[in-house]
């Protein structure tokens, strides 16, 4: 690479890094509990980006980076880190169980339940829901990331929402329990059982 070519590549990479490092880091940390592992994944994403600067579409930089991050995380899940992540998850679940006993209506409990429900969905369903609600990606950006049509994203998202809603309903999550007990403490019989 010529000096000028390298300077231009470095300038573009610097802009890319400045704009998206925090978004890529947030994306990975939302999906990886272990901070050192997450940091390694972030590094891997940007090393790939540096090597493949010419392949990154100028108007799709974020979705390109998140697509790489998704693959990096998937590869890591299949590698030796699987065992460590499993341990971390077991610890996390133990923590969740303690929360259930102490503060069932707490927001952190609700968040844990929702995250667990997402884990039970098919990976692609969970991912599309996270991309919308956590990464604030538009349908068009998700379509770019998955390489599918906007219509396909709409359909997939609708189905994913239905499946998550079913999971949450099965788990009797959210307001169905505590708030209604507070508002209507005197109800009894079958009507009360409905909220148990």
């Amino acid at each position, binding site marked *: 690479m010529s000096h000028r070519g390298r300077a231009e590549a470095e300038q573009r990479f610097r802009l890319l890094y400045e704009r998206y490092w925090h978004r890529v880091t947030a994306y990975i940390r939302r999906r990886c509990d272990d901070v050192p592992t997450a*940091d390694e994944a972030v590094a891997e994403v940007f090393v790939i980006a540096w090597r493949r600067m010419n392949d990154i579409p100028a108007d799709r930089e974020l979705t390109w980076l998140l697509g790489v991050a998704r693959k990096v995380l998937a590869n890591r899940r299949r590698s030796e880190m699987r065992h460590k992540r499993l341990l971390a998850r077991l610890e996390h679940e133990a923590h969740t169980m303690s929360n259930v006993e102490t503060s069932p209506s707490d927001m952190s409990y609700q*968040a844990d339940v929702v995250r667990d429900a997402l884990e039970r969905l098919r990976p692609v369903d969970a991912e599309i829901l996270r991309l919308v609600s956590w990464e604030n990606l538009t349908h068009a950006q998700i379509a770019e990331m998955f390489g599918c049509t906007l219509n*396909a994203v709409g359909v997939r998202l609708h189905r994913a929402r239905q499946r998550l809603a079913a999971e949450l309903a099965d788990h009797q999550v959210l307001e169905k329990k505590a708030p209604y007990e507070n508002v209507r403490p005197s109800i009894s019989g079958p009507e009360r059982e409905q909220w148990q």
Partner: protein
Amino acid sequence: MSTDPYDEDNLDRIVRSANRISEAGMPRPSESEAAQDLYKRITGTPYAGRVFKSRRRRTPALFAAIVATVGIAVGVAVATTTSHTVVHTLSVSCYSADSLQGEQVVVDAQAGGPVVACAHAWSQGRVGTGPVPLLAACVTPQGVAAVFPSAAGADVCGQLGLPALPAGQSTLPVSTSTTTTSTSLPGTMPVSPGQAIVANLRAACLSASQASAMAKLLFAKAHLAWTVVVTKSFPAGRPCASPAFDEPLHQLVLTGIPPLSGMTTEPWFLRSKNDRAFPGLQRCPRV
């Protein structure tokens, strides 16, 4: 209180509440030693990105010193600047206020010019909040294109002691006369509908109906469910449509502004059919 988990908005709120990592709380590379170390490991050169200003740490004395320094620098620049040439052709500094002390965001240069590049960044909320303001492009003494929000008729560049970027001068090293930006801007580089709308409305003075038709066509081509809203009829002195993108509501709001320098009066869709190419709006491959 909404308790229906099947309600889409409610469900999205629930999923959002399960997000443990807030993006607003994430440091930027200039605030993170780990990020800067990583950058150095990857590129082999130290990170020299945007310097974020922390208002909490800024003391009045330091602030006064900065103001004085910038004032002197601007004075020197006024006295010595003779060149209107952009040296740094790949990036543009977009300022959030008509001041050199305002927050700035560095963005990639676009063939449409610095104003188009910054208008796009504004529309994405990366420079400031609210609708895209009227923008003015100047050149810093370092040869960087700097774009500031401006009031209609105001000489922002003059007030800051900077030379204005000559009309039609692009930061990118390609031919981009003002009469061709609306159609040749995409060239071989795909653009989003938002970029294309901004570029078209920067290049030509379109009425509300013309701008609305153009925007609807571009949204339709991209299969985006955006609506176009014209707040009220444009007053006599502000005949040209200016775009503001309301991302949460998926609305493009059109307001009237005075004609900008370099605008043509001939809308792109009245030109030959060969000019109507909008690369970047191609459909996704089916899966």
